[in-house]
C-alpha cells in the first residue's frame, strides 16, 4: 500500500451528488490486460466530447485544476460499482485525496488500498470550503489534507476541519503497510477459528 501522510495541493470542485464509479471510470476502460493506463479513463465521458476533443467546460480540463491532487466532491461520491479501478484511475492522474460529505461504502474502502485518502467532512464544511475556493478563483485554490492530524484545511487561512478514518486503515495508509502480511500475523487465530467452525458449519467449507 502506498503511504500518505499530508499534502497541500490544488483542489478541484466536483460537487454534484451521487457521482457513481461508472462516471469516475466507464466500464469500457476495465477491459484491459494491465492496470496501467486506467488514468486515461478518468471521467472519460465528461472530459472528452463526443467528437473526441477535450471538453473545456469540465473542471479537470481547465488550469489549474487539470493538475489538482485533491478532489472536493459531493455527497455519496463513488456510489455504485465496486470497481477499484475508480480510485486507481484517480491516483494515476495524480489525485491523493477526495474530500466529500459521504462516500459509497465500497469505494471508501478501495481508496485506502489505492493510496487515496477519503476525507469525510460534514456537508456544510464541504460547502464552506467550496465557497472559499470559488471566491479565490483559479489563483489560490489549495487545500491541505493531513491524515496524521486528521484535518482538512484551506491553505493560507484558519479554516480547518477534523475528519476521522477507521484507525486500522489510517495506519496502513500512513505507514504504507502490506495488508495481507498484517492479516497473516493472525494466522493462529484464523486456524483456531477454522478448526472449530468446521465442526459447526461443515457445509461452509465444501
Amino acid at each position, binding site marked *: 500500500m502506498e503511504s500518505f501522510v499530508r499534502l497541500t495541493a490544488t483542489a478541484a470542485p466536483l460537487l454534484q451528488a451521487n457521482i457513481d464509479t461508472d462516471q469516475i471510470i466507464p466500464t469500457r476502460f476495465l477491459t484491459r490486460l494491465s492496470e496501467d493506463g486506467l488514468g486515461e479513463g478518468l471521467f472519460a465521458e465528461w472530459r472528452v466530447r463526443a467528437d473526441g476533443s477535450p471538453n473545456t467546460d469540465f473542471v479537470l480540463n481547465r488550469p489549474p485544476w487539470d493538475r489538482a491532487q485533491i478532489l472536493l466532491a459531493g*455527497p*455519496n461520491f463513488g456510489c*455504485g*460499482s*465496486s470497481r477499484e479501478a475508480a*480510485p486507481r484511475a484517480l491516483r494515476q492522474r495524480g489525485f491523493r485525496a477526495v474530500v466529500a460529505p459521504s462516500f459509497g461504502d465500497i469505494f471508501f474502502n478501495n481508496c485506502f488500498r489505492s493510496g487515496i485518502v477519503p476525507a469525510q467532512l460534514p456537508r456544510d464544511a464541504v460547502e464552506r470550503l467550496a465557497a472559499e475556493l470559488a471566491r479565490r478563483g483559479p489563483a489560490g485554490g489549495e487545500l491541505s489534507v493531513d491524515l496524521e492530524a486528521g484535518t482538512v484545511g484551506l491553505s493560507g487561512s484558519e479554516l480547518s476541519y477534523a475528519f476521522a478514518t477507521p*484507525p486500522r486503515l489510517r495506519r496502513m495508509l500512513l505507514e504504507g503497510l502490506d495488508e495481507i502480511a498484517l492479516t497473516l500475523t493472525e494466522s493462529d487465530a484464523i486456524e*483456531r477459528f477454522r478448526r472449530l467452525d468446521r465442526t459447526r458449519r461443515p457445509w*461452509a467449507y465444501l
Partner: protein
Amino acid sequence: LATNQGVVGSNPASRAMTTEPDPRTFFDKVWAEHLIADLGAGAFLLQIDRLLLHDVTGGVVMRELGTSGHAAASPQQVFAIVDHLLTTLPAPGLRTGWTPVAAQMIDETRYAARVLGLTLLDVGDPRQGITHVVAPELGIALPGLAIVCGDSHTCTLGGIGAIGWGIGTSEGTHALATQTLVEARPKTMRISFEGMLPDCVTAKDMALALIGKIGAAAGSGYAVEFAGAAVRALPIEARLTLCNMAVEFSAKYGFVAPDESTFAYLRGREFAPRGAAWDEAVAHWRTLASDEGARFDAEIRVDAASLQPQVTWGTSPQHAASVSGRVPQPEELGDPAQRALAERALAYQQLSGGTRFEDVAIDVAYIGTCTNARLSDLRLAADFLRGKKVAAGVTAICVPGSSTVKREAEAEGLDETFRAAGFEWHEAGCGMCGSGRGRLEDIRVISTSNRNFENRQGKRTRTHLASPLTVAASAVAGHIADVRRMRD
C-alpha cells in the same frame, strides 16, 4: 457483547447455561459466526466462506495474487465464473469475449483459475451464467454464508439468506490469500414491506419505489434486512431481485433471513449439502432468523399494497415514479441539490418534466442481467408476450441469466414465445448491462437492469429501469407502458 463470545474457543455447554440472551438480528448472528478476531478500533477479522471471481475483476485479483507472492488460502471455497465479457449473440461454436481484449481477459481468468485449482464455470459448461444467478442456482451461495465478489451486486445473494457484499481488487486479493477480510461493522436497518403486493407489481417495483422514496444514499453504512409479509411471500428468485437492488440505495449488504421457502429452493442443488449434512445445515439455518424484539439501528416501513409498477426517468435509481404517471417537474423537488440533479438528469435523458410516461417512445427493450434474468422473470415476460408482437422500430432483446435458465426456458418453449413476439433470444451472460457493446449508443432503452447511470448502457444511451413485465409491455406498445392497461 455477550453474544459474540461463542465464536472463538468457548464451549457450547457454558453458553447453554447462561440466562436468556438478548434478542439478535439475523445479521448479528451471522456476523458473530464469522468473527475470527476483534482487531480493535472498529476493525474485525471475518471468515469468508465463498470468494467469487468473475472475468473482469476476478482476473485482476488472481493476477495481483501472483505478484503479491502469496498463495490461495482455500481454493475449494473459491469459484471463478465467466460472465461479464462474453458475447451473448448466438453463433456456432464456443463463445468468446466480445472484443479481442475481452477474449484475452477470459483466457487469463481461465488459466489462473486452473493454476490455483479453483472451480471454474466456463463457456461451454452447462452451469455457466451470471455470477449472481448461478451462485444461488448451484447452491454455491447458502444461508448464513459470508460471500464476497469484486462486484457490487453480490448483495443479490442475500435473497437466499447469505450475507454477500461487493469488494475491490485489493480486498479480493486479501480474501484469496487469507480467506478472510477485515471489515468495519455496519449499522443494521430493517425495511418491512407490510401487506400484500397488488397485481402486476413485482420485486423490481418494490425496490424502485423504495429507492424513489428514500433516495440513492439512504442505505450507506447499513446492512439491510428486508422483512414483512410481502417479502415473506416472495419466491426466492424475486427475493434475489429485491436484494440485488440494495446497493442501488448504497446499502453494501441486503438480505432476507432464510425460511422454509429458502430451504425448499436449495435442496438438491449441486454444492448444497446432502443427506444428514443437509438436515444438520437446515437445523442450523432455522436458528438464524432475527429474534422477536431484536433491535435495528433504523427501521423503514412500506405499505406494499399501495405500490404500483415503476419506471425510472433520470440517471439515478432514485429517479423512479409510477409508470401510470408523468416525468416530474424539477421545480416540484424541494431540495435545491436534488432539483439541480433532476435538471441535469432530464437534459441527459432528453425528457421534459410533465411528460406522460406513455408518451415516451423507446428504441430498445432489454430483458436480462443479474437483477431480472431468472426463469420466473422470463416466464412473466413471456406470459404477457404470448400472441403479441414487438412494436415496429423497437429492438427487443432477451438475455437469460444463466445457461441453466436458458435451457429450462427452452424446455418450456419460452424462447419460441420471445422469438415469435420479435425478441432476440441470446446466450447467457451479463450482456448489455454495463456497456452498449457497440449496439446501444445514443438510444432510449427500457431495461430490467439495475443502473440507469449516464452512459452506463452505452454512450449517451438513455436507460429506463423497470420490471420484466413493464419492459415486455413497453416493447409491444413501442413506448413506456403500464402493463395493467394492456392485458387481454
